[in-house]
């Protein structure tokens, strides 16, 4: 009966990390904590018998997301700008109402691990009983992913392709152009300082651009 104990322990670690993310202003630290959050989540998935999901979460969620976020931090500010506030009331209200509605919504779900829950009564049973002979590999998750629901995976690939195109369109192509016409900053109130700083950015080589003074 060690499973639920580990489950609760990992989930409480995750709560602590999430609260730390709320308070932390150093964005490098935030990136690391979000990575740790994903890694603990992979642990929770392992406890809940979802080995394939745990692998993917550890590799993609904790790995690739973190690399992307760190890459973004090298191109933007390292620290969040300090604001006057403490807790802001309106977001907190919205979040509390949403959370209360969601808890209300879960109140009549079947209890955790109930073998008679509706989710287990539909196609899942058939997959478990027949996929061994129909597909011929022992891992049922792989059978469903690549065969029974192969079109889902094809759609997923299309989404990733689109996202790749979008990132290339946003970041990749413009480097070949001569310096693009900057926004019409010359003739407005905050013009002068902005023009100077963006011009400085544009003159520097893209790789290894040093972080500019503080938080902007």
């Amino acid at each position, binding site marked *: 009966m060690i499973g639920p104990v580990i489950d609760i322990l990992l989930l409480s670690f995750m709560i602590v990390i999430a609260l730390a993310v709320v308070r932390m202003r150093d964005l490098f630290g935030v*990136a690391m904590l979000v990575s740790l959050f994903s890694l603990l989540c992979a642990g929770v998935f392992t406890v809940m018998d979802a080995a394939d999901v745990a692998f993917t979460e550890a590799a993609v969620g904790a790995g690739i997301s973190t690399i992307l976020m760190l890459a973004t931090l090298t191109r933007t500010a390292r620290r969040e700008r300090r604001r006057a506030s403490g807790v802001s009331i309106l977001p907190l209200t919205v979040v509390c109402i949403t959370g209360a509605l969601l808890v209300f919504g879960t109140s009549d779900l079947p209890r955790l691990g109930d073998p008679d829950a509706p989710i287990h009564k539909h196609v899942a049973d058939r997959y478990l009983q027949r996929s061994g002979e129909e597909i011929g590999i022992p891992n049922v998750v792989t059978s469903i992913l690549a065969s029974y629901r192969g079109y889902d995976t094809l759609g997923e690939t299309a989404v990733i392709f689109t996202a790749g195109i*979008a990132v290339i369109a946003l970041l990749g192509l413009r480097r070949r152009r001569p310096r693009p016409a900057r926004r019409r900053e010359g003739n407005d109130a905050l013009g002068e300082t902005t023009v100077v700083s963006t011009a400085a950015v544009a003159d520097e080589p893209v790789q290894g651009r040093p972080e500019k003074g503080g938080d902007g």
Partner: protein
Amino acid sequence: MRFSQLYNYEIAIFLSMIGFYVLVSRGNLVKKVAGLSMFQTSVFILYISMGVVQDGTVPILVDGVRVYSNPLPHVLILTAIVVGVATTAVALALIIRIKEAYDTVEEDEIHEQDRSF
């Protein structure tokens, strides 16, 4: 394994609401993406919790095992994780682009600059 209540769902909702709070209350765009990422991960926990079967095991067919956890939520969440990273990548690319155009990634400063045109 014995699960007798709904605590996994409640904790997942609590975690996702923390992520939601970061998303709506913080002005820094990178931090917003971090909050969105936590929100997403918590929803995965919610789904995987639904697939747990008492005394079940990992859905890999082995002789002598009769109870497996439900593989269907696992497949859906595998897809969701990968799609989530793809959307995060686009969001971060947009942030880099915003930084170059506005020279800041703080939401209120961007609004300020937009108003002055």
